[in-house]
Structure formats: C-alpha cells, structure tokens
C-alpha cells in the first residue's frame, strides 16, 4: 500500500509540471505584445517598459516560466489587474461557493442516477429499463445552459417559486441559500445523474450475473435482499471511484451554470476574467482546477485500492 502511494504520488509530479507548462504557454498564444494588452489604453513607452520589467516580459520564455512557477510554489498565483487583488485570495473567496454548488449537484445526481441504474438493471428490457435509458440520453444530450434557462422560465418567471439569480451564503441564511442554489445544482447534476445511471446499470448487470448472486438466490433469499445486499454492494465499488472523477467535471460545468444564475463562484470568476482580459486570473483558475482534478484522480485510485481487497496485496 505504501509503495503504491509513493509511486502514485511520484507519477503526478511530471503531470503537474506539464500542466503548469501548458497553462503558462497559453500566454504565448496572445496575439501581439502582452505588455500592450496589459497596459490597456496606456501607450506611454515608459509605462510599457515598466510593465515588461515588472512581469519579466523582457526575459526569455523559460526564465519567465521559472519565475512564474517559483511564485506559484510559494503560494503566489499572480495579481488580478482588474480587481487589484491576489489571484490566490480571489480563488479562496470563490471556491467555497462552487464547492457548495458541486456538492449539491453530486447529491442530486446520486439520488437520481443510482436508483435509476439499479431499477434499469434489475428490470432489464422492460418499460422501466427503456425509461431509465431515455432519461440517460436526455441527460447526456441536454445542454445545461438551455436547461437552466427553461427552469428559470418555469420556476421563476411562470410560477414565481424560486429566485432566477443571485446567491446567499449557507452560513448567512440556509433556506435562502438553498432557494438560490437548488436550480443551478439540479442543472449541474442532471448530466452527472445520466452518467451515474449508465455506470450503475452496467456494474449491476455484471454483478447480477456472478456466481455469488446465483448462490444467494439458491439459498432462498428474497430478491430485494439479493439485489441490495449482494449485488449492489459489489457493483458500487467502480461507481464510487468514478464519482471522485465526476466531481472534477462538475467544476467545469459550473462555469456555464454560474453564468446563467449569476452565482459569484469559480466559474463566473473565470468568465469575467476572460472578458476583462485578466489573464493572470484565467491562468490561476485553470491551474487550481487542474490541481483539484489531479488530486481527485489520486483519491479515486486510493479509494479503489482500499475498497477492492484483491488490489491491496
């Protein structure tokens, strides 16, 4: 187990270095002189020279990268030109909002996707199975920004039950917080529920055809007990590990959802920064998201190792 952990930790180091290089390299795609872009309306050569010196744009690219990564490693992700604040501080302010949204979306996806997957596998090739598969196709094919707009039309404009936009912190007023986040969380969880349903269905179908399930049936156990106690427990191993990976995908989906519902989270920060040409924030947010994603991948591997005794060796 210890050697597995060490190997796995060592493996992510080159990945993290390459990710940081890719993210730093994005800056090189900017057409024209980055100093001119950073200066905005300002065209004074003195100011431009100052910017070049301050951001070390006058240095060769590998040197610029080394300065940047040195800053990142000491917790300095750069500074937002627009908000005049450290990127790290901004990320720490916005991340809890997105994490709340992602956690609620995950809960909704689990509550819909896993029961639908179980029913679909147990009632294979019946109307239940076809219905669950249709739901999965709907979830995978619906653009979440469209679903968000439709929900706003139904629940906010027509019925007036929920606010169309805005955000209240959970600690401030939990009811108002739930009211502002339930629609975006559903939009975010919808596609994930479809993915979970498909994973659960295939894992359950595999578990239902194993010898231990046949044995449990032969012993005279009720079908409910066979499904829930014997098949489901084993089928959940791959599903749980996949959940960790899907949590990373939720961070990506939050970009659009937060934009539609005007939620001041991580996703909105990146979009606002893109339009204000605040490139240090874009780089910082992408770096943090990728690091979270890589961390979740590692956790998924460890969870898989812990859950599956055959791999523990």
């Amino acid at each position, binding site marked *: 187990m210890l050697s597995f952990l060490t190997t796995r930790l060592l493996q992510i180091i*080159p*990945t993290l270095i*390459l*990710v940081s*290089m*890719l*993210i730093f390299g*994005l*800056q090189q*795609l*900017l*057409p024209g002189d980055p100093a001119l872009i950073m200066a905005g309306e300002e065209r004074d050569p003195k100011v431009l020279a100052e910017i070049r010196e301050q951001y070390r744009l006058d240095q060769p690219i590998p040197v610029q990268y080394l300065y940047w990564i040195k800053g990142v490693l000491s917790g300095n992700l750069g500074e937002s030109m627009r908000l005049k604040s450290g990127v790290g501080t901004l990320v720490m302010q916005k991340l809890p909002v997105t994490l709340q949204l992602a956690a609620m979306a995950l809960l909704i996806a689990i509550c819909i996707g896993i029961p639908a997957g179980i029913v679909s596998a147990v009632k294979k090739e019946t109307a239940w199975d076809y219905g669950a598969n249709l739901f999965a*196709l*709907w979830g*995978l*094919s*619906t*653009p979440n*920004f*469209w679903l968000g*707009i*439709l929900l*706003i*039309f139904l629940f906010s*404009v027509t019925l007036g039950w929920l606010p169309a936009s805005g955000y209240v912190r959970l600690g401030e007023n939990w009811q108002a917080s739930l009211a502002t986040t339930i629609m975006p969380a559903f939009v975010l969880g919808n596609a994930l529920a479809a993915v979970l349903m498909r994973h659960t269905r295939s894992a359950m179908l595999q578990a239902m055809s194993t010898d231990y399930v046949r044995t449990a049936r032969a012993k005279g156990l009720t079908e409910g007990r066979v499904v829930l106690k014997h098949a489901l427990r084993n089928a959940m191993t791959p599903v749980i590990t996949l959940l960790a990976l899907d949590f*990373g*995908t939720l*961070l*990506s*989906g939050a*970009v*659009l959802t937060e*934009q*539609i519902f005007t939620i001041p989270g991580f996703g909105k920060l*990146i*979009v606002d920064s*893109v*339009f204000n040409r605040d*490139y240090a924030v*874009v*780089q910082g*947010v*992408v770096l943090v*998201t*990728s690091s979270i*994603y*890589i961390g979740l*991948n590692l956790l998924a591997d460890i969870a898989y190792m812990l859950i599956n005794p055959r791999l523990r060796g």
Partner: protein
Amino acid sequence: MTAAALPVETTSSAHEESPWSRAWRRLKRRKGAMAALVVVVLLILLAVLAPWVAPYDPTATSFATVRKPPSWAHWLGTDEVGRDVLSRVIWGARASLSAGLVSVGIAVGAGVPLGLLAGYAGGWIDAVLSRLVDAMLAIPFLILAIALSAFLGPSLSNAMIAIGVTATPVFVRLTRGQTLSAKVEDYVEAARAVGNPHWRIALRHVLPNIVPPLLVQASLAIAGAIIAEAALSFLGLGQQPPAPSWGSMLNTAQRFIAQAPWMAFWPGFAIFFAVLSFNLLGDGLRDALDPRHK
C-alpha cells in the same frame, strides 16, 4: 478489418460478408440509430441548403416584428430586433455542425497520427506523448476550451481550433491503446516478417484495423463538440453577432425569457436534437462495430 489483414479463404471468400457490410446490416436493425442517422443527414442538408430553405434573411431586422410569438408568417416567432427565429435556427445549424465536424476533424487529424506513433514506436516517444496527453486530460475539457478561446480571441474559427485541440488527447490515447493491441497480432507480425517498412505496417496494416473504435469515438466527439461550440458561443467566445449560432441565440434569449420564451426554446431544442442524434448514432455504431455483438 481490411482485405490485407484478413486470412485468405479460397473456398468461402466469395460468400463471406465483409466486416463493413456486416456492421451496416447490424446498424440497420437498430431503429434508434437509423432514425438518428436520418436526422444527422437531414441536419447536414439543412445546413448546406440554408440559403434556399430559410424563409427569411437571418440577419434582416424589422422593428415591425420585434419579439412576435410564433405565427403563420414566422413559425418559430421573431427575436428582439425582429429577426425570424426559424431562419436563424436553420443558419445556426451551419455554425454548429461545421464546428462539430471541423473540430473533430482537427482532433482526429492530430490525435490519430500521434497515437499511432506513440503506440507503434513505443520507448521515449510514447513516454513523452503519453505524459503530454495525461497533462492535457488533467485540465477539465470546457475550462481548457474557454482558456484557449480566450487567449486566441473570440471567433467561430478560434472556437473550433480550441475545441479541436482540447479533444485531441482522447484520440491520441484511444489510438495508442488500439495500436498497442493491434501490433502484436499475427497479421502485423506477418507483415513485418515479409520485410514491410514500419510506416507501411502502421498505415496499411494497423490503422485500417483500428478504425471502428475511432469511428464510434468520432461520432460521440461530434456531439460533445456541438455542445462545446454552443457553450463557447453562449459565453460570447464563439460565433460573433449578428451571425446566427444556436449558442449565441440562447445568450440573447436569456435576457428576454419573460417576454419571449420562444427565443430560448428553439435554439436550445436544436442543440439538444443534434447532440441526441450524434449520441444515438455513436451508441448504434458501437454496437454494430463491436465483434462481441452478434
């Protein structure tokens, strides 16, 4: 498999069904996939024939018809400056489908040769390419596409490049894996034994045998690329107004959801319908091309 890769059967080859015709026969049995194929063909025709099919000019504004609900004159209603929604949805198919096809074309064009190289050559080339792919896959798809579009500048062609580059690692990884398992097959050994050069073995013997999974992935990737283009256009990073695109139509429609809900419904439905069709086609192709399915 190609003819080059198949063992020669002198007695029954005349009656033996080729793998492609067997796949087509299986695909025809799947009603959902066939319906999806018909829809995809119709959507492509609609996009190509947009100038003749669309009832109005998609960019022509009219103050007399601002935000009119669906009627005989305007079947899907009009938008905030009086443009015909149906005409814009039809023209929008061009942006979405071309984004889907071009960006997947970029991903296949770059990903398949790189994957073939990594899988066939192995060694340090494989190690470097695989680490690079791991790094790209570590950045969530949409976040990378947004970041790339942001740095390249907002336009439909840059959005296509961003989506194509972002989708490339999946094709590298898939091709590499398929190549690794194909290169130890007997027919590749045989091709090597008779002295074929490496490039010929990779292109003539390995590549044709790994096409089926790539085709399935391409179909599903087109669905993903259509959603990604719509998402980028929705955020203002793709197709620029007044040119129509389903994503940018939704962006505008969001502001008028209380007064003109039809403005949001139809472009969103078009994205859903196109993506659903490519997903269904991909699922059908997977079943039809999988040798384990009889």
